[in-house]
């Protein structure tokens, strides 16, 4: 018999296959996920990085502060337990004998941690500079520390591996170029920078699938991450009216309009809830 079977398709069969194939082709153009309301993984920030500009007009003598608390209403979701048994090194050291739980939604006393708060609109045009100090992200006990971080576009981000096991650092960047680099136990730091603004860039380790953190890249230094007490503080803001946004990896974004006066502290409160 011949190796090649010449398909003896009837007209109807051909139409069915052609229709399915055509539908497949059209659907292949669809993105898998339309951004869900409040989901911000890997989104480019609305505040695009300006090209080389004159320094932003900031008079340090009159700058103000924005501070506040991020709260969580309702029953906090139970943190899922993480099973680290697939790598014995992960349950040594700081994790020995402890239960590891997810940091996706951390609520303590009605306060929400790990919310990235930043100035979204209202900043005077200009170059806000890039800090020379790197943002440091460590891998300890097979967790990324911190879970949420911010960096200025172009600022160095330094990844450390303090664990006695290999990791691979994999930022799943959308606006920036993604990469994936192995890091040996207590190996050399990985230093990279991200030049384009991007919110909630997921950084994971494919050797330990529970490991993830979220890096937020913005074109200015006016951001903070809420602590376990829900508190945040952004200093050095020029007087003016601003839109401040609070972004959470699962609960979405909330915004607040505030006015910062000379040498004053403005307050912004953000409330998330179990029904987000």
């Amino acid at each position, binding site marked *: *018999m011949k190796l090649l079977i010449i398909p003896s398709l009837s007209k109807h*069969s051909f139409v069915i296959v052609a229709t399915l194939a055509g539908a497949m082709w059209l659907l292949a153009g669809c993105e898998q996920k339309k951004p869900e309301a409040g989901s911000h993984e890997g989104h480019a920030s609305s505040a695009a990085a300006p090209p080389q500009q004159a320094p932003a007009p900031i008079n340090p003598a009159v700058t103000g502060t924005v501070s506040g608390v991020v709260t969580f209403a309702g029953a906090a979701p139970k943190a899922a337990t*993480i099973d680290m048994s697939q790598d014995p090194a992960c349950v040594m050291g700081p994790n020995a004998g402890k239960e590891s739980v997810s940091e996706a939604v951390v609520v303590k006393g009605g306060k929400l941690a790990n919310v990235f708060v930043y100035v979204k609109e209202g900043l005077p045009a200009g170059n806000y500079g890039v800090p020379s100090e790197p943002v440091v992200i460590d891998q300890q006990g097979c967790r990324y520390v911190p879970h949420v971080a911010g960096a200025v576009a172009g600022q160095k981000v330094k990844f450390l591996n303090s664990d006695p*096991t290999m990791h691979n650092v994999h930022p799943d960047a959308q606006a920036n170029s993604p990469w994936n680099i192995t890091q040996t136990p207590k190996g050399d730091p990985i230093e990279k920078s991200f030049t384009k603004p991007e919110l909630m860039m997921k950084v994971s380790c494919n050797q330990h699938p529970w490991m993830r953190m979220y890096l937020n890249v913005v074109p200015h230094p006016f951001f903070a991450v809420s602590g376990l007490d829900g508190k945040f503080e952004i200093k050095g803001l020029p007087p003016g009216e601003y839109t401040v946004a609070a972004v959470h990896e699962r609960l979405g974004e909330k915004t607040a309009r505030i006015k910062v006066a000379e040498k004053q502290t403005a307050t912004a409160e953000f409330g998330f809830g179990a029904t987000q």
Partner: protein
Amino acid sequence: MNSASQPAFHKGLHRFATALAWCVLILIVAGALVTSNDAGLAVPDWPTSFGSLYKIPPMVGGVKYEHGHRMIAQFVGLLTIILAVWTQRVEKRVWMRKFGWALLGLVILQGVLGGITVLTLLPWYVSTGHGMLAQTFFSLTLLFSVFTSKRWIEAEARGLQASEALNLRALSVLTVAVLYVQLFLGAAFRHGGLHFLPHIIGAAFVTAILLWTSIKALTAYGAVPEIKKPAIGILALLFVQLGLGFAAYLTRVEWGRDAVQPLPSMVWTTVAHVTMGALLLGKAFVLAVQAHRHVKPASAAALDEKVATA
């Protein structure tokens, strides 16, 4: 056909080909475990693994799945080389010798595709191609095993009349085609290129067509074991696959929506669903081949009738 031109049955070659097909299925399981455990990038380089072509890295975490998959793939590659050379040496059928070398070419291509998908950080379309080629390769190794079997070599084409109500040759090819579309939709969803909805809608189409083909095949040619066996196989696998698909949807899409890591239920239902899909595609290929071997084309049947009534 006289004995001089009839191909000889080589038991060793047939057993080897069958073993290769099973190894390919195990490789598909290993590959599915990589994806289900989010371990596709656990080994970031290729063709080396952490800089070495031969050193085995610590097999922990995601490395266990990814490097394990690569090791099984290398073994399958070696088996395929042996198969191609062995076939070249003993097979009288020229097309089978070419088939053996074609399998080798395919497995090399599959390896390269796997490497490309790692080096380009798993773009969904490359990973989908890798998954689809894997199942194609399995189907072809299954066919190779069929073609080297004693039953195939010693049997002759039955010359069955095409039924008026059923063009099994066309339907069996349609079955393979719709399974490929469904495979694409499933793999594209799994690798982040598509929503799951097209795959679920596709399942309805596939179910209808597979049911139609199998039932019609059994009704018209139920006494023909070469057609009966794959038709029953398709029916049985279809129902198992539908159940596994539902389980995979529940565990991965619904219950596993906010999972912090791949859970055992998510992993095993999706791996089983992928593997069963490969078996179903393989069976569909076998049915198509047997239908083309034993059932006359509709045009030939019409000609026969013309001649008879002339």
